[in-house]
């Protein structure tokens, strides 16, 4: 992750007034580094001439833990990676292990999984919108976003009893049957949510200050984004139409109609627009899904003790922040031999230095915000 800042020719540039550059240490305790990210900024005045992300303050060794747990025991741990999108993490893991076991979740389980995952995407994007706007100085959207997020968390709570680290899914399907009013709750949320998105847009989209703070800030060109391995809204805002839900459909996504929003310039404003549109699309997916939830079992036939055949599998899903991949090697025992997780935040964070150079300190927080990183996932 550490960028070699010494060999970059731009570092040799003459600073204004010929003064030495100022090294500013942002984080790990800073209001807007979204957790414990530490950024070493080299500044000329307020201009960033180099940056270095220092991570690992939240490292818990999740991948190593996996090697000492059975397949089922490890499932709750993945919720603690991207803790604002725990449902998506769980979906990725469960589907990866199902692929390894060569079983498939029943259709009813798949649809319920899709509904909850899409709700989680909205919740995650809402959290992003609130904190991103707060970083740029707009205080109020945060509270509006949390109001809506609360509704989603209530649905999770009703479904599985937990709000944040839900552990909603099991390998092979679901443990809990959908509660009676799930469809009604989701529908009423979706109905109420439509005008709410408009409220956020009214506050921000055409706001001169918001435009000034986000347009042209942190531009990531499509080829750079691809070279860096960026995924999710960060990639799509650069104009690359790549969404795993469409490219390699999983869960029940192949049954639903939805658009993939893409940006043009790949600046902070485009990423904002892309995520806003994604929330709308997720809402549409939820509405389509609740219309027709198939009946039937919610759990495939898997044994109490999971012993996948020796082999390896890579499975990735479109988490709210990008491609979340699980690479699992089985040696035929009850414990995985190795679990490697490809976290979208970690990979997207690589683009930070490229995006921040030449901008001002104020833009740095906007760029950290627009990358939508969760340090629990970056450090694992």
């Amino acid at each position, binding site marked *: 992750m550490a960028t070699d800042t010494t060999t970059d020719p731009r570092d040799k540039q003459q600073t*204004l007034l010929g003064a030495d550059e*100022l090294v*500013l*240490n942002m984080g790990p305790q*800073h*209001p*807007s580094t979204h957790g414990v990210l530490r950024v070493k900024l080299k500044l000329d*005045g*307020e*201009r960033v001439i180099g940056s270095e992300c220092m991570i690992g303050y939240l490292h818990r060794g999740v991948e190593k833990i996996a090697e000492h747990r059975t397949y089922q025991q490890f499932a709750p741990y993945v919720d603690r990676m991207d803790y604002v999108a725990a449902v998506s993490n769980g979906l990725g893991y469960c589907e990866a292990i199902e692929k390894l076991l060569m079983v498939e979740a029943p259709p009813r389980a798949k649809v319920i999984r899709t509904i909850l995952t899409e709700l989680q995407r909205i919740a995650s994007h809402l959290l992003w919108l609130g904190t991103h*706007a*707060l*970083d*740029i*100085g*707009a*205080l*109020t959207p*945060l*509270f*509006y976003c949390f*109001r809506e997020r609360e509704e989603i968390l209530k649905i999770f709570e009703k479904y599985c009893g937990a709000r944040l680290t839900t552990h909603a899914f099991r390998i092979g399907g679901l443990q809990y049957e959908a509660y009676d009013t799930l469809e009604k709750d989701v529908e009423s949320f979706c109905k109420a949510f439509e005008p709410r998105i408009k409220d956020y847009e009214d*506050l*921000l989209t055409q*706001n001169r*200050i*918001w435009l*000034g*703070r986000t*347009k*042209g*800030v942190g531009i990531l060109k499509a080829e750079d984004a691809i070279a860096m391995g960026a995924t999710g809204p960060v990639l799509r805002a650069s104009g690359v139409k790549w969404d795993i839900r469409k490219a390699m459909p999983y869960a029940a996504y192949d049954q639903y109609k939805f658009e993939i929003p893409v940006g043009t310039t790949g*600046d902070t404003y485009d990423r904002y627009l892309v995520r806003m549109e994604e929330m709308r699309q997720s809402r549409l997916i939820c509405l389509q899904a609740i219309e027709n939830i198939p009946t039937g079992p919610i759990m495939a036939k898997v044994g109490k003790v999971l012993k996948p055949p020796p082999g390896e599998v890579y499975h990735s899903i479109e988490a709210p922040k990008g491609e979340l991949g699980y690479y699992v090697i089985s040696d035929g025992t009850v414990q995985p031999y190795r679990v490697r997780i490809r976290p979208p935040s970690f990979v997207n964070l690589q683009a930070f230095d490229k995006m921040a*150079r*030449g*901008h*001002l*300190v*104020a*833009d*740095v*927080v906007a760029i950290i915000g627009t990358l939508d990183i969760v340090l629990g996932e970056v450090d694992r």
Partner: protein
Amino acid sequence: MEFVKQYWAPLVCGLVIVAVLPLIVGYVVLVERKIMADMQARLGPMRVGPHGLLQPIADAVKLLIKEDIIPEDADKLVFWLAPVLSVAAALLAIAGLAIGPAFQIAKDVNIGILFVVGVSAMGIFGIVLGGWASNSHYSLIGALRSSAQLVSYETAAGMALVCGLLFAGTLNIASIVEAQRTQGIWFGLLAPVAFFTYLVASIAETNRAPFDLPEAESELVAGYMTEFSGFRWSLYFLAEYTNMIVVASVATTLFLGGWLRPFSETHWLNFIDFLPPLLMICIGVYCLIRTPKQPARVQQLFMLAVAGLCFAVALVLAAPVLVPIIKPSLAAAVKPYYEGILGGFWFVFKVSAYIYFFMWLRFTLPRYRFDQLMRLGWHFLIPLSIINVLLIGIAMIAGQYFHLAGWSLLLTTIPASIIALIVALFILATEQKSEPQKASGAAPDSYA
């Protein structure tokens, strides 16, 4: 007696202000938090006292008993001095203000408004020195930003004030209000562009959102205040809110008719005098209606107390209006009380409205970036305010030529304001045209 009037009365007044202002500021903060909560779909402080009414006192106690930390490498003397300087300048500026014709500490200062503006601008020393003395990068950047911002916006604010002073023909604060009475029109109506310029510049001068860059918490933690804690920090806080009151008072005095009620010289609108007591009675009645709905006995008693207070205030406000009607012989004796009490109400009302607008902006708008702030100041506000001074001057000369005064002066100032508005739109349009080029590369250099 003369001696007492000349020296001791202002001194006592000053002491009272120094003692009471922190309390007022505390409640301004509470009101701000309540308004913010209302706009953000939540309740705000509710725990300390009914509806959080004792919150400011709890906060003050907390700040006073907090550990006082001075960083190891800080310049101790300057670190100690800086917040004091900041708050002293802000409190000194209060002395020049006139809340009513009778309430003014520094009376008949012939450079009144210049004194207020000059002294409140001294507060920047506290910020710069504090930022420098803390020996921290965040503080230093915050202080640098603050000084640059203040210097830039002081110019625009000054130019806007000049417009008002052109109409008043005096710098004496009491005389400025008096001039608005004799001319029968507020200067804010005669020079709306100047009022707008001052509004924006005063937000920037008091470091309030969307221009709160010196203490932009998401970037600079707390800007120049980062290393300050406990009482020192609260002094900065006090200075900031006092400055808010000062700029609001200056705007009220110069543009909104000071302690004059709306249409003070139009006698058939005299019923406006009854609005303040009526307003208080309405609040009181509302409290009475809500009283039975309160769940706890304490809350019911509290609501009754608030209602009683409102009725008492209503009585005080109504007395000077009602007495001359009942007993016309007392009219002359009551006049000073009328000016003092109702004038005080209108002044506080206007200042509150102005501050409410500040708060409203803070909760609605994102924050400017530093270079954008500078561009707005130097490329937009300063040219606009200078052009506006010229136009208003021309309008006044034209007005004299046609023997216009009072409301009829609008005939010349409205075209002047429209021209200024067109200039403003023109500047904005050229700004927008030049923006795409900047967007392609890095942000422009703010220090260049």
